[in-house]
């Protein structure tokens, strides 16, 4: 007696839930937007945990959950839904299929996740300078040019040819019409003089 009573109550509860779902669905199809909100509120935890139990990743779960309901919304709005009274199993089936799609896509294109000990970003680095460093670099380079401008003409000429035009001392000596030794000597004096100027004026040329 008690058992049958319990069973009836249980089936009644289930019935109400089913009717409510079906009613909400048909209300939603008729344009009642708040019905969808109730449906999502009612089932979100079940669907979300179901997806999470398969993918074990919060972000992916969030994505699949969203895609599931986008599909639900589109199907309902297009009037293609016909499984009245079985809303949750239907949504679960969509979620299940999307989870499978997700794994299929990933097996074709595996991605690195940073969850493990090994992080790909510890190996890859960005070699370009950040804004501050590139400003400092420009500053240093213009300082160096100003120091070079202070040099006597013959030394400046050798230094520019050597450092900026990448010429050999042989080429420099040919171009300037002096011996290689003279060119080497001018280069040496150019560097000595530059160091002097830098020291005297406390110019900092480090990045």
């Amino acid at each position: 007696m008690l058992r049958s009573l319990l069973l009836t109550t249980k089936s009644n509860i289930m019935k109400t839930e089913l009717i409510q779902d079906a009613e909400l669905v048909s209300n939603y199809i008729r344009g009642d937007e708040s019905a969808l909100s109730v449906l999502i509120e009612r089932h979100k935890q079940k669907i979300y945990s179901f997806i999470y139990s398969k993918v074990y990743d919060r972000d992916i779960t969030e994505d699949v959950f969203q895609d599931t309901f986008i599909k639900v919304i589109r199907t309902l709005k297009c009037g293609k839904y016909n499984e009245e009274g079985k809303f949750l199993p239907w949504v679960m089936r969509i979620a299940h299929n999307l989870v499978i799609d997700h794994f299929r896509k990933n097996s074709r294109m595996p991605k690195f996740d940073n969850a493990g000990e090994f992080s790909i970003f510890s190996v890859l680095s960005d070699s370009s300078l950040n804004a501050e460093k590139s400003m400092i670099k420009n500053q240093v380079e213009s300082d160096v040019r100003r120091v070079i401008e202070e040099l006597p003409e013959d030394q400046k000429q050798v230094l520019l040819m050597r450092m900026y035009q990448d010429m050999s001392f042989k080429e420099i000596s040919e171009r300037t019409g002096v011996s290689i030794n003279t060119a080497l000597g001018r280069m040496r004096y150019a560097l000595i003089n530059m160091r002097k100027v830098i020291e005297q004026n406390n110019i900092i040329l480090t990045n």
Partner: protein
Amino acid sequence: MAKVYSNVTPKNDNLKPKDETVRFLLNYSKALSVINYNKLKFEALLN
């Protein structure tokens, strides 16, 4: 040992979508309208 076995793993009750996801879905639903035209269905997202 018994104690270890009887330990219940803490249940994660926090398994539910973010509010913004739900909000997005509701907004998406509001924005989506399906236009029927001669047995053809057009979906339009109107924001």
